[in-house]
């Protein structure tokens, strides 16, 4: 057991070390959040009628924060494919550790990477005047962590069905971009036509985003205009689906690796 925990930490640390060495990647990960919050959020806020009842900038900020944590962890997990192509994965896969430890280590490592990015987004939010109290930040931390872990499990499921980095680069945008809009990262989805409503509620990212907003807008008058589900409902959905994604994704991934 100690051995498995050591292995999980070791694998996680490697991902974090790699982030710190890759300055270009650090910069690149901030570009989209800054564009979305800074330009999209601010411009919509300036042009929408003031009577919508809430700040659009803050709405986009909370959405992008959860979306970045979810997506960054998911795409980080897909780097297991890159490892496979560089053959580093062989080193991991012949080692005497549980296959689940490999996946959990990877999710943990990518979570640390995403949380670091999250700190950058929060700093940016403070800079452009998003109201954030220390108390709120502390409460947002577990919601952020859940968004990361959930994204990680989602990443494993996607990964287990992909053969190469090329396939990943081509397919990943198709499964992530629709979620941006269906999860309501920058667009309100409180009321939607039936088809979009079903699709929206079927997207994993919806729950990560809504949980973050549920925590941020807790006890505030805007809550009923923005938040879809209760914190406990979001937490339950995320926990159950997380387990399904993780177990199914890992089983499929190992099976595909061995049974060629």
């Amino acid at each position: 057991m100690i051995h498995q925990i050591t292995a999980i930490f070791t694998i996680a640390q490697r991902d974090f070390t790699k982030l710190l060495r890759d300055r270009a990647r650090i910069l690149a990960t901030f570009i989209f959040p800054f564009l979305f919050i800074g330009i999209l959020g601010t411009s919509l806020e300036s042009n929408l009628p003031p009577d919508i009842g809430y700040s659009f900038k803050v709405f986009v900020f909370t959405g992008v924060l959860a979306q970045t944590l979810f997506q960054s962890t998911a795409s980080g997990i897909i780097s297991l494919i890159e490892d496979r192509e560089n053959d580093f994965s062989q080193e991991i896969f012949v080692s005497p550790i549980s296959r689940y430890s490999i996946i959990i280590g990877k999710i943990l490592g990518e979570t640390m990477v995403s949380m670091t990015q999250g700190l950058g987004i929060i700093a940016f939010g403070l800079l452009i005047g998003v109201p954030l109290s220390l108390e709120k930040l502390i409460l947002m931390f577990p919601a952020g962590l859940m968004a990361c872990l959930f994204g990680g499990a989602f990443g494993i499921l996607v990964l287990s069905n992909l053969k190469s980095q090329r396939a990943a680069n081509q397919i990943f945008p198709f499964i992530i971009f629709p979620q941006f809009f269906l999860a309501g990262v920058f667009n309100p989805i409180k009321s939607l036509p039936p088809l979009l409503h079903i699709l929206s509620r079927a997207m994993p990212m919806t729950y990560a985003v809504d949980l973050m907003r549920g925590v941020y807008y807790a006890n505030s008058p805007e809550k009923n205009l923005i938040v879809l589900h209760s914190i406990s409902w979001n937490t339950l959905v995320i926990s159950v689906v997380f387990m399904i994604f993780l177990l199914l994704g890992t089983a499929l991934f190992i099976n595909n690796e061995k049974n060629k």
Partner: protein
Amino acid sequence: MKDTVIEVKNLVKKYKKANTPAVDGISFNVKRGEFFALLGPNGAGKTTTISILTTILSKTEGVVKIANYDIEKEADKIRKSIGIIFQNPSLDLNLTAEENIRFHALIYGLYPFRPSFSLMSEEYRREVIKLAEIIGIKNDITKPVKTFSGGMKRKLEIVRSLIHKPKVLFLDEPTSGLDPASRKNLWKYLQDIRKKYKTTIFLTTHYLEEAEDADRVLIIDQGKIVTLGTPAKIKKDLIDSSIILNAKDKAALRSELDAMKLDYEGHGPFKIKLNGKNAQEIIKSIKSDLTYLDINNPKLEDAYLKLIAKGNK
């Protein structure tokens, strides 16, 4: 069977999308401490075999045991008992040499986790410095591996694979992609390691001179065993050694060869098949003045080429 460290019985591997099996019913044993070479042309099934033996790939049929553990049921115990050098380098190029070694040591559960070199146990630090000295990278240990040459990377992989003291070291074409000088250098290093640690070595290669030093050689082609034995036996079975002689007085030499009832061909120079006879004895008893003498002791390569040619007919 106490001395057997690898046991393979009727191993078959058929890839999902393939029509014919990549490995088609091979059986062999490897003894403890043996230097065993698996030889074959590209696509013979070498990498498939080694991937199955190292638990990366599952087999279709057959029995595989390593250190007496079953490959299906006790894969974890096998993973602990083996070290592997892959055909494609498996280092993380963004990490330093030391970080690559530490990663390995930690996932093999050799030391408790600590987030940096200086916080690792003293035993580990001493070991790493010792290893770095052996491969001559003591001053480069904190540099990213991407700055290393091909030969250095290979050596680093070998020391890395040895830190958990494996019973069997698998090497899948370890010198492919290296220039001849680094190849020779690496090979010498590997022989030293072998003497020092008495590790069983399982090598796949298509460089025949590397298999020449093996205790036994298994040649496979198209997934099937062509031959198995010591390099000497394979050579003897396949190509007879010969001597080539010539003299000014070819007729005199010919009558001498006839008198000794030797099996020869040519009209000068004469190629004399030894058929197990001692070359020196033959040369000693020849009276004619020789103008040319060459002892043709075939390399394993000749035997190998002959075998593969036969298989493809």
